[in-house]
C-alpha cells in the first residue's frame, strides 16, 4: 500500500503530480512561462508565476486526461483574469483532444476581489466551458479537498460538472460564513463556530444531501482511486435530467426547507442518530447513505 498523503496538506502542483501516473504530467503555461496577473502588480500585491492555478495533461491509469488544480495558498485560489482564462483554455482544449476526463482540483474562495469584474465574467465563461465539455460526452470531475474549500463562483462551477468528489474535511457552498456573518450578524452565522460551519458547508452534509456524489478520506490515493473509477463516466444533461433535478430541488425545499440546523435536516432525511454524524468516518457515512437508499426504494 502507498504511504498516506493528506490531500489538504499538499500544494496544487504536488496534488497533480501525485494524482496522475508517475512522470506523466505535462504542464501548460507553467511558472517558466511567467503568465502573471498584470493587475496584482499594479496594485502592489504579490503575484504568482502561474497565477494560482496549475493546468496540463497527463495519464491516469494509462488513460489521457486534462487536469487543473487551484492553489489555495495563493490568494485563496481566487479567480482572476489569467487564472480564469487558464481554466477556460484547458476545458476548451478538451474539445480538441478528447481526454478520458477533465479533472478539476477546486480550491477557491471564488472571485478574486482585486480583479473582481474580470473574475466574475471568467466564472461564467468557465461554467459555459464546463457545460460544453460535458455536452461533448467528456466527463468533468471536481475533486474538492483543499483547506480553503470551494466557495462563491467556484461553488457554482463545481455544480455544473458531471461528478463532485469531496473529502470529509472539505467545504463547499456559495457564500462563505464570514460573508454571511458580516452581512447579517453573528446570530445568523457565527463564522468562528467551527462545528456549525462544518455542519453547514462540510463534506458530510453535502454527501448526505447528495450535493457531492462521492465522499472520501483526506487521502490523495482515495481521490486518485475515484478519479480512475469516473474515467469516461459522462452524465450528459438533457431536458429530462434537468426536470428531475428541478423536482428534487423542489422536494428538498418542501421537506427540509424550514430546518434551521443540519442535524434536523439529517433527522428528516431518515438518519437514525443525526447527532452521531460528526463522529462518523467516511465508511460509516457511505453505509448510512446506502441504507437510506434502500429504505427509499
Amino acid at each position: 500500500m502507498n504511504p498516506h498523503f493528506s490531500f489538504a496538506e499538499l500544494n496544487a502542483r504536488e496534488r497533480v503530480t501525485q494524482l496522475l501516473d508517475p512522470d506523466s504530467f505535462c504542464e501548460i503555461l507553467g511558472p517558466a512561462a511567467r503568465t502573471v496577473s498584470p493587475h496584482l502588480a499594479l496594485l502592489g500585491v504579490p503575484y504568482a508565476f502561474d497565477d494560482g492555478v496549475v493546468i496540463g495533461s497527463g495519464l491516469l491509469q494509462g488513460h489521457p486526461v486534462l487536469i487543473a488544480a487551484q492553489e489555495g495558498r495563493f490568494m485563496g485560489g481566487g479567480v482572476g483574469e489569467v487564472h480564469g482564462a487558464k481554466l477556460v483554455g484547458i476545458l476548451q482544449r478538451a474539445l480538441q483532444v478528447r481526454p478520458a476526463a477533465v479533472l478539476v482540483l477546486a480550491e477557491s474562495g471564488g472571485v478574486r476581489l482585486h480583479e473582481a469584474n474580470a473574475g466574475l465574467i471568467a466564472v461564467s465563461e468557465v461554467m459555459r466551458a464546463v457545460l460544453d465539455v460535458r455536452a461533448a460526452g467528456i466527463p468533468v470531475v471536481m475533486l474538492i479537498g483543499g483547506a480553503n474549500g470551494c466557495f462563491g463562483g467556484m461553488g457554482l462551477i463545481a455544480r455544473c460538472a458531471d461528478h463532485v468528489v469531496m473529502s470529509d474535511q472539505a467545504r463547499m457552498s456559495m457564500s462563505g460564513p464570514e460573508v454571511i456573518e458580516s452581512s447579517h450578524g453573528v446570530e445568523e452565522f457565527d463564522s468562528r463556530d467551527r462545528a456549525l460551519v462544518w455542519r453547514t458547508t462540510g463534506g458530510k452534509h453535502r454527501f448526505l444531501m447528495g450535493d457531492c456524489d462521492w465522499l472520501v478520506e483526506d487521502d490523495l490515493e482515495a481521490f486518485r482511486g475515484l478519479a480512475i473509477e469516473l474515467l469516461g463516466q459522462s452524465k450528459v444533461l438533457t431536458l429530462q435530467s434537468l426536470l428531475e433535478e428541478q423536482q428534487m430541488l423542489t422536494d428538498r425545499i418542501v421537506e427540509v426547507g424550514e430546518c434551521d440546523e443540519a442535524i434536523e435536516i439529517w433527522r428528516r432525511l431518515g438518519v437514525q442518530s443525526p447527532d452521531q454524524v460528526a463522529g462518523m468516518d467516511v465508511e460509516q457515512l457511505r453505509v448510512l447513505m446506502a441504507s437510506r437508499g434502500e429504505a427509499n426504494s
Partner: protein
Amino acid sequence: MNWQALSLALFGESHAITRTGDVIHGTAQLGPALTIAVVGTADHAAIGVETALAQARFVLDTVASHPGRPILLLVDTQGQRLRRRDELLGLNRYMAHLGCCVDLARRSGHRIVGLVYDQALSGGFITSGLMADACYAVPEAEIRVMRIPAMSRVTKISEDLLQALSLTNPVFAPGVANYVAMGGIQALWSGDLKQGLLDALAAPNTVDTRATLGAERGGRALAASVIQQVLAA
C-alpha cells in the same frame, strides 16, 4: 428602471409579464409571429433557493412546451441571498441548476438574451444574464462585485490607490462601462429598447466570444491570448 416601465418600453401593451414574489415572468409579442418568453427578478432581489428555482422552472417549461421560443433574461439583483438557511439547502446547486437550464435552452435552439435593466451584483448575475448568448444593459444600470470602499477594507489596499487605478483599469471598479470594455456586456441599449432586442435576436451568438471581445475593446488584454496559448500548447 422598474420592471413595469421596462416592459412598457420594450413591448408597449403587447405583453403578459407578471410578478410572483421576486420573480417576473411571462410572454410578450415582438411581432405578429414572434413571441418571446421573459423571466427575471425585480426590485434588486436577493437570489435565494426559491428565486433560482422559480426562474429555472420557467426556462424548463419554455424548452418543454415552446421549442425554439427566444428567452429574455431580465436582471435586477443585489446578489445571492446571504443566509445560512440557503447555504444549508445548497444554494450553489440551485443557482448552478438555473445556469444549466439556460445552457440547455441554448443547446436546444433557443436564443437567449440577457438584459441588466437595473442592478447586477456579484453571484446573482453569474447564473442568469452572464449565461445568456449575450448580455446587454441599459446605460444607467449598475454592475459590480463590490464598491471601492468595501474593496479597500477587504484587500487592505488604500482607497486612494483603488480610485486612481479605476480611472484607467476596468478590471475591479464598479460600472457598466467596465463590463462593456471587458466583453461581459455585449452592448448598451439606449433609446429604442425594442430595437435593441430585435437586433440582439438577429445576431447569431451561440459561441462564447466574450474574451475575444474584451481583447478587441482593450478591457481584458490577456484572457483571449491565454486561452489561445493553452489551445496551441
